[in-house]
């Protein structure tokens, strides 16, 4: 139970950042003031300024939007595609089933970064393409999860009964199978969200992530690494926020898994 609370506490910090960024930002995140670069935390700039004199706090807040849209959007779409593919593969079995699953295995084995490299080089950098890259990464794990679950569920009494009184594929799929799979999907989703954010930071290190001037946590961390001497505290801030988000999602996932296991046993 505790992991669930710790997870939600951490994520609530991120959500608060998101809300503030929608309402109003302390100052214009892109306004540069070269004279005032690396200013220490002060009244006007709570977390100080970066190498262009831009306010770190507002950039961090704005970045929460891109971080969440990229990971939520990416993992969300990956989940949808993955689940549908997995459900179809598990439900139909036969040739279609094994073809889908073999494709998933290949996608699973393919190194993520190379995939992102090719995707981003073909489609160009920017938020949408990073989102696509993360979506493609998360499809296989969801497909496998759903495939396994559907196979297992075939032996459940209420599924067999539903098939015997001819409840119809739609009812079986959407009212029986998917609701039953939701807790597991929830767990996988939160783990994938965590790794989604990490992927964004990795991509921005290679210059393929969310591009300037739009701020992103990964981008800020990457830039900060070269100014560590000038402002040792500067890289800590994005690093800590990333840690908060990733650990938050992971703990949330563990919490849901634990609660789901209790509920079932």
């Amino acid at each position, binding site marked *: 139970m505790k992991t669930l609370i710790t997870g939600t506490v951490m994520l609530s910090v991120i959500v608060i950042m998101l809300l503030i960024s929608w309402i109003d930002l302390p100052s214009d995140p892109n306004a540069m003031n070269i004279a005032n670069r690396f200013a220490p935390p002060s009244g006007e700039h709570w977390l100080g300024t970066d190498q262009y004199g831009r306010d770190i706090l507002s950039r961090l807040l704005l970045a929460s939007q891109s971080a969440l849209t990229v990971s939520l959007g990416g993992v969300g779409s990956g989940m949808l595609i993955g689940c549908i593919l997995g459900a179809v593969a598990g439900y139909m079995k036969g040739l279609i089933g094994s073809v889908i699953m073999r494709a998933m295995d290949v996608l699973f084995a393919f190194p993520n970064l190379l995939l992102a490299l090719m995707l981003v080089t073909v489609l160009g950098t920017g938020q949408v393409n990073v989102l696509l890259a993360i979506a493609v990464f998360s499809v296989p794990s969801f497909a496998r999860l759903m495939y396994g679950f559907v196979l297992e569920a075939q032996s459940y009494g209420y599924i067999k009964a539903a098939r015997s009184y001819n409840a119809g594929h739609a009812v079986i799929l959407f009212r029986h199978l998917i609701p039953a799979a939701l807790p597991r999907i929830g767990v996988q989703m939160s783990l994938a969200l965590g790794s989604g954010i990490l992927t964004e930071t990795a991509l921005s290190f*290679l210059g393929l992530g969310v591009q300037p001037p739009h701020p992103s946590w990964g981008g800020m961390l990457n830039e900060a690494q070269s100014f560590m001497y000038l402002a040792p505290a500067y890289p800590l801030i994005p690093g800590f926020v990333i*840690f908060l988000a990733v650990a938050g999602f992971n703990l949330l996932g563990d919490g849901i898994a634990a609660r789901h296991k209790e509920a079932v046993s």
Partner: protein
Amino acid sequence: MSYLAQRLLIAILLVFLVSFASFAVLMLLPGDPVRLMLGTEAPPHLVEELRAQYGLDRPWLLQYADWLAGAVSGNLGESFIYKMPVTQIIVDRLPMTLSLTIFASLMALLIALPLGIWAAVKRGSWVDGFIQAVVQIWIAIPNFWLGILLLLGFTVMIPLFPPGNFVPISEGLGAHLHSLFLPALTLAIAEAAVLIRMFRASLVEVLNKDFMTFAHTKGLPTRKKYIRYALRNSLIGPITVIGLQVMSLISGVIIIEQIFNLPGLGRLLLIAVQQRDLFLLQGLVIFITVTVILVNLCVDLLYTRIDPRIQLHATKRRTT
């Protein structure tokens, strides 16, 4: 034996498919290798000349056919950038990537196995809580960030390790491992985090099984009980994960190679894509596909070694 023959057949098919896909993708990419080499200062007429010289002006299907013919006979063509046969470049890089992969995987195993077992055996205690907290942190740290910290921490602040110059194994194992220690540690930490969770979960599951209680009530000595009974049964899950991690290590450590300045396959991959070095990329893609297939095969064979119930069928369904 016929099963292996079948796996070989699928492997060859897979390599062909993947190489065709990557060739097509590279052709789609805007940007042309010659112009990339010449940059903005090159004399204008030079671009056409070199394109003709490399045969890049022909339709790409023809180029693929040429490349394939060469590949089948073992000649993967020459890299535009390095003007050296692709096979030689890869072979030069292989020892470094292999030793990094093996070193990092062993280190990850050395960290994850004891901690995973300790957490499982003492599940629910403060030890378990502590290890799980550490795992959460290790997972949450982006690995390039960890790399930089280790680099600065242990090469500059406390000069324990040489920063970023790779010592090949030919110059002595000690120096070789010494130069690879930090990058391997960075990789190992990220991997170990995942492995610890995996070991702990599968071990806890096994410890609750009936045959463990039966071993206990048979009066078996604890050490034998844990190793011969509990550990062996808890290996199936982690092996799959280790297989995946080895695969990603061989081709996916671009970031660590950049930070620690290691001339590995990852960085070569990045340069090949950015410079649109066609033949180099094809060579690398084939190499990665082959290693993926080999690792998969090893993992499957390992399964049968560990678990007699598993029979390898055409459709790879495991009958556990």
